[in-house]
């Protein structure tokens, strides 16, 4: 693992997805290393969710390749998926299970051995501040707790890459703060990709920014990039996404 710390965890080349003639994602290239936190920005309908669904094997790309820690996602889906955790926009929760039942199921699905399950579930519950909710039904939890359970299932198997689709939507400011801390903490040893509409969130958590517009990459840089040019991220965002005339013309 130490050796891997600088090696690439995610490598995306020329990823495209078309729905009929509509272009959802076009020619996306991404390279992530251990310890990278990438913020995925873009107006609604820019293709962020489609991109994330392709990265996690929920949608087959029309063209291009995805490699997770050097394993091709399309050729060896199981091995690749085992190194990845995904929280979709709507947390995929079974309302009729208790928190610990659900997390045990998630751990089993990710091939955690029986002997380690209890330990791992306890650890992840501690990490996501779910300590006293183990016996509660997921359906009875508040939105903030449900979101934490969603994050817990994404990181339960110690994945190399964690992909979170708008993890802070609908949370109160305190909960947002906690989730941001958690993302920062995850980013120490893993690669994290998360999408959001809150620019300040990206500035406080990420070290890289990727802005998409109409399915294309319109901006990709480290977070310090815009600052060097004395531009705020907001200015960059408005500039690259308002420019529809140019990006849609080819």
């Amino acid at each position, binding site marked *: 693992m130490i050796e891997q710390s600088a090696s690439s965890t995610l490598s995306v080349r020329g990823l495209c*997805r078309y*729905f009929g003639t509509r272009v959802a994602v076009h020619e996306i290239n991404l390279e992530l290393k251990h310890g990278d936190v990438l913020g995925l920005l873009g107006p609604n309908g820019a293709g962020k969710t489609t991109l994330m*669904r392709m990265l*996690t*094997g*929920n*949608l*087959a790309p029309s063209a291009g390749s995805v490699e997770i820690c050097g394993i091709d996602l399309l050729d060896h*889906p*199981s*091995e*690749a*998926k*085992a190194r*990845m955790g*995904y929280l*979709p926009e*709507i*947390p*995929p*929760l*079974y*309302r*009729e*299970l208790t928190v610990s*039942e659900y997390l045990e*199921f*998630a751990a*089993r*699905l*990710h*091939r955690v051995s029986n002997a380690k399950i209890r330990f791992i579930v306890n650890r992840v519950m501690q990490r996501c501040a779910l300590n006293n909710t183990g016996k509660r039904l997921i359906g009875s939890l508040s939105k903030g707790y449900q979101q934490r359970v969603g994050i817990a*299932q994404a990181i339960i198997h110690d994945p190399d890459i964690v992909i979170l689709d708008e993890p802070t939507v609908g949370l109160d400011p305190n909960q947002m703060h906690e989730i941001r801390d958690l993302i920062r903490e995850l980013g120490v040893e893993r690669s994290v990709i998360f999408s959001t509409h809150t620019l300040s969130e990206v500035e406080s958590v990420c070290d890289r920014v990727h802005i998409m517009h109409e399915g294309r990459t319109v901006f990709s840089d480290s977070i310090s990039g815009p600052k060097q040019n004395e531009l705020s991220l907001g200015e960059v965002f408005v500039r690259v996404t308002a420019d529809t005339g140019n990006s849609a013309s080819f």
Partner: protein
Amino acid sequence: MIFIIAQKELRVLFGSPLPWILLALMQLVLTWIFVAHLDTFLQIQPQLVKIVNPPGVTEAIIAPVFAMAAILLLITTPLLTARLVAEERRNHTMTFLISAPISISDIVLGKFLSLMAFFSVVIALVVALSISLLAGGTLDFGLLLSNVAGLFLICACFASLGLYISCLSAYPAIAAAGALGMLMMLWVLDLGADNDKDSLTRNLSLLQHYENFNRGVIDTFDLSYFSLFVLLFLVLSIHRLNRERLHG
């Protein structure tokens, strides 16, 4: 992996009142039929003794109970299968399963297995009912076994068809209605066939194949019909879910 999915399905299923209500009601109805047949049998028994080679209790009581059990299960299966995939879609949990390092066939087979586990409980209860006759006589265990095998196979057919219909929809109610309609159709398909042994509709009808098992005849044609039926709909389910991933 298949077992992990099946275990989760059973946990979710038995966490709701539905399977308990179904088990109780089915057992109530079957016991009622059982008692009614037992009563008739006891009434006509003095006359039966006079016939050469009279029908035994297994033929007169147990076989009709099994025949009725198949029809009850035909009606209740859609209630159980409808939620399998449709509800996962509705609750957005399908993503969770697909993002996990398991294949689509694991998901489909796990769900199918969970239904078969439920049906095994139903069948075990019917067998328990039949075995109670041992208190007052002997049973034809060969006939009983053939009935059990037949009921198990026809349940597998109901389950695989219901599962496939559930894969087509995001609304459990629609999946239930669809599966019920298809199963009913397969039940009454042979009505127009009269006694023509080779008619197509007769050969396609599910219940027609079950009748042989019900009479104690295990025919390879029936066996292959049931196996192909199950296989076809399981493959179609896997294909359908895969297609979703490819076409979005």
